Structures are given as structure tokens and as C-alpha cells.
């Protein structure tokens, strides 16, 4: 319903603008403003979401988690701060849902001091209410934050217990069943770092993924995503870049597991207004060029 109203209002308006431009009339800038405002407002009010389709770089992460046998060991590292959280937190939550849905074992950790509190927010808001059956120490555990940046990775690539004698709650690692057959990062099946600064995905690749020869995936803020592309697909099996990447992952998750449909998918929701606004701006550019070529043609004839 909302989609139809928005499409009629905006599409009609754009067609009218195109018509005016072809006739050679100038479009007032205020009309442009009204369009931008209306587009974003409509998309927010009607909660428009668009069929995000996962690009290969996102799909490969999804497929990797999907195809690992149940009980595989996956590390998820929270390497970000509150400023980046709106962009990358949705990725982390989507990963948690997917990994626990597939009954993998999930090891949380953080290379950022600020990551630890964000991690516990995720645990309380997503993991515990949505997966009440998941048992601490068996299905997931929280190693918490350790200072030392990539130095931490340098150590845990050979031995977890040296760096993490105990988890974030003070339990010794040996008391956790899921650590029974884990000696170092090399015993993991997949490493995922979610972050956007340093240390982040790049450090994970260079200090853990590459030397340990463990599959590595990442989620990154849009700003730093381009810097990570060159690592794909050899050193990085996949990457979620910015809100867009997060939305693609959420869409893929909902497609495969419809039970998540009514859960909050912030990235997907954020992409609605974004997509609409971008479509409208691109339409403006096209209309502007139509008007330009039209006027030039006329000028030529005169």
C-alpha cells in the first residue's frame, strides 16, 4: 500500500518533471527539495524496504556460515566503538542470529575496549531473548576485551589460554566445554571481525587469518570498506561493507529463515529511505541531462 502511494506520488512527479524538461522549461530548485523531503518521509512513514539481493562478496559469507557443519567453531570479534555502532552493530547481530540458528559454536571477543559493552548489549538484546536454549559455555562464550591490539592476535594464534586465562566472567577456559578441543585460533572454522578502525578486519587478516590459514570474513564501516576489497576473495572469504552490506545480509537471512522476519532489522530499514533518495537523485541527474541536451539541440537549430 505504502509502496503504491509512494511510487505514484514520486514516479508521477518525476514524470511531470521530465515532461517539463523536455518542453524546455526550467524546474525550480524548490521542487527538487520537495521531492527529496517527500521521498525520505514517505519511505520512513511506510517503512519501505527494497528487495536487497546479496552481492557475491556478501553472499559468500552467508554461504560459508550456511554450509559449515553444525557445531563448527566461529569467532566473532567486536572491534568498534559507539560512533561506528549504527553502521556495524546490525552486522554483528545478523551474524549472531545466523550462527546460532545453524547451531554453530560462537566465541565472542573484542580488540577494542569500547567493544565489550556493545558486545554485552548484543548478548542481552539479541542472543538471550531470541535463543533462550543456547547455553553459555556450550553454544557460546564471551572472552571479552584484551588490551594489546594485534599483539593479542599474535598470541592467540598459537594459544588462547596464554592471553585469555579466563573468559569475561572469570570462568577458566578449561571449565567451558566448548574450549575442550580448542587450543588456538587455528582450531577455528571461521573468524569474523566486525569493525571499522584499527585494529580491525585488516589486522585480523594479517595476524590471524593468513598465518593461521583460517577462513576469515569481515564486516566494516563504509569508510574503510574500500581498503579491504583487495583482500577478497583470497584472504577474505567475504565482506559486509557499511549499512548496505548489512542490509544485504539481513535480507538474505530473512529469505532463508523467515522466522526472523518480525525481528528488528535496522540496516534493512535504513536502506529504504536511502534507496528511494538515491533513485530520486539519479532521476534528477537524468532529467537534468535530458533538459540540457534538449536545449542544446534547440540552440543548434536556431
Amino acid at each position, binding site marked *: 500500500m505504502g509502496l503504491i502511494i509512494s511510487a505514484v506520488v514520486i514516479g508521477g512527479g518525476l514524470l511531470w518533471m521530465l515532461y517539463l524538461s523536455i518542453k524546455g522549461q526550467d524546474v525550480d530548485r*524548490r521542487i527538487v527539495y520537495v521531492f527529496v523531503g517527500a521521498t*525520505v518521509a514517505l519511505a*520512513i512513514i511506510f517503512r519501505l524496504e527494497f528487495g536487497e539481493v546479496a552481492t557475491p562478496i556478501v553472499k559468500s559469507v552467508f554461504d560459508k556460515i550456511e554450509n559449515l557443519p553444525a557445531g563448527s567453531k566461529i569467532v566473532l570479534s567486536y572491534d568498534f566503538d559507539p560512533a561506528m555502532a549504527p553502521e556495524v552493530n546490525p552486522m554483528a547481530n545478523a551474524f549472531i542470529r545466523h550462527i546460532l540458528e545453524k547451531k554453530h559454536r560462537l566465541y565472542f571477543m573484542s580488540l577494542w575496549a569500547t567493544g565489550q559493552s556493545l558486545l554485552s548489549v548484543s548478548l542481552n538484546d539479541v542472543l538471550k531473548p531470541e535463543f533462550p536454549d543456547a547455553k553459555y559455555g556450550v553454544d557460546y562464550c564471551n572472552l571479552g576485551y584484551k588490551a594489546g591490539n594485534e599483539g593479542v592476535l599474535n598470541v592467540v594464534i598459537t594459544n588462547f589460554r596464554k592471553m585469555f586465562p579466563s573468559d569475561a566472567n572469570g570462568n577458566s577456559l578449561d571449565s567451558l566445554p566448548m574450549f575442550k578441543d580448542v587450543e588456538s585460533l587455528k582450531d577455528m572454522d571461521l573468524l569474523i571481525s566486525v569493525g571499522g578502525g584499527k585494529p580491525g578486519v585488516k589486522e585480523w587478516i594479517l595476524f590471524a587469518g593468513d598465518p593461521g590459514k583460517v577462513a576469515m570474513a569481515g564486516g566494516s564501516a563504509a569508510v574503510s570498506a574500500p581498503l579491504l576489497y583487495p583482500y577478497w*576473495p583470497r*584472504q577474505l572469504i567475504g565482506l559486509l561493507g557499511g549499512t548496505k552490506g548489512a542490509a544485504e545480509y539481513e535480507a538474505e537471512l530473512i529469505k532463508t529463515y523467515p522466522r526472523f522476519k518480525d525481528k528488528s532489522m535496522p540496516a534493512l530499514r*535504513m536502506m529504504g*529511505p*536511502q534507496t528511494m*533518495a538515491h533513485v530520486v537523485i539519479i532521476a534528477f541527474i537524468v532529467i537534468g541531462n535530458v533538459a540540457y541536451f534538449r536545449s542544446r539541440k534547440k540552440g543548434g537549430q536556431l
Partner: protein
Amino acid sequence: MTSKIAMRILTAIVALIFLVSWITRSGSGMSDSAFTNVRDGFLITFAVFLTLSIFSFLYRDNPFYKFAESLYVGISAGYWMSYGFWSTIVGNFVPRASRSLSEFFHVPYQERADHILIYIPIIFGLILLTRLLPKIGWLSRWSLAFIIGATAGLNLTRYLRSDFISQVSNSFIPLFVDWKGAGDFVSHISLAADGQFIAILSNWVIFVGVMCGLVYFFFSKEHKGAFGVASRIGIWILMITFGASFGYTVMGRISLLVGRITFLFGDWLNIL
């Protein structure tokens, strides 16, 4: 004349909406205290009024925008004064200048061997204020000379590393990454993001791009012939960059608008 009447009617309507909003928001407040509810109702209504006043600038300049603008500038100036006083004077300067002042402001006094040196800048600062006295106003140029001289001296050497030397030295990149002969290169050619071909192409683009960009910035040579070609490539690289950065920024700017519209529809009208 008619526009004046229209303006008055408009103002009346805006005032009415404002009042209605204030009353309804005060009625639906969460707090137990009536005063808090009325105050919060006023504050959110006022914030909405200011937001819409700013947006009205998109239509054209108008009294609402002028009001919001003047208020904003005034608040900002007052904020800046207070901030400058507490953070720079009290936070930075008092602890080094005087023990008794430090005690007065409850900031820890920093014992330093060179605390007398802090008075040199103060003298320059006082000299600057002579501007307010017409007779000896020219003295203030001494302070300006200090500022400009210091800025120039600092910039003469300090940014050479970040802006010049690092940029030049980072441009020394291998132009043949993982080269194992032409045959190997041709047989493994692919468009994968981490492939050899893309790596080599990228490094060439960076190297040639930096060179041509520099050529573009030559002032004493006409852009003709081979020089012209190089500067042309330079301007193309610049334009690709500008276009890409512009297109890339759109998303961030739309997010800002999403935030404001969510504020209007969600926090104010409660329809989300």
C-alpha cells in the same frame, strides 16, 4: 501590503500549532510532576519549531529562519564564551599561572619550573587589546605579527613530512606485482579484485596519476603537447576522484535527513 497580512496570518497559524502541540505534549508527558511535563512539552515543541524554521529556508529567507538563525548565533556565542572560559582559561591557564587562583577555581595547581613563561603570551594578549584604544591601536599589530610569524614558522617545516615527504615516498610502489614473466601474467589474467592484473593496473594508475596530477599543477608551463596530455590525464584523475567522493557522500547526507525526519514523525508526532 497583502504580503504583510499573509505573514501575520501565517504567524498566527504557526503560533496556534505551536500552542496545540505544547498543550498535547504536556498532557501526554511521562513524568509525575506537572511542571516537568509542561516544560518538556514546551522544549520538544520549541525544538520542532526551530527545526521547521530552518527547513523553511529552503523555500526562501523568512522571519522564522531569521529568528532561528539569530537565536542560534547568540546561543553559540554564549556557549563559546563559557566554553573558552572554563576549558582554556580555568582548565589550561589558571593551573599554571597562580596557586591562589587555582584554589579559587578548585583546579589542581601545576608546579612547573617555567611557569613564568606563561606571562609572555599574556603580554601579547594584552597588547592585542590596544585595538580598542584608537591612539595606540597600532600596537596590536605586534601580537598579530607574533601570530602570523608563529603560524608561518610552524608551517614552514612541520607539515613537510605528512603533506610532502610521506606522499612522495608512498608513491614508490612496485609496478609489477608478483611478476613471474609475461607468459605467466597473460595466462593468469583475471578481473578478480585480488588478482595480479588488478594489482598491477592499480599501481600503475596511482603512479601515473600522481605524476600527471603534479604536471597539472605546474604554473610556469603552458599545457601544450605532451605536457598538455599529461595534465589532461591529471585533470581526469582529479575529476574521477571528485565525482566518486561526491557520489559516495550522498548516503551520509541522506542519513542526516532521515535522522531529522524520524525526529519530526517519531519523537514529535508519534506516528512511527
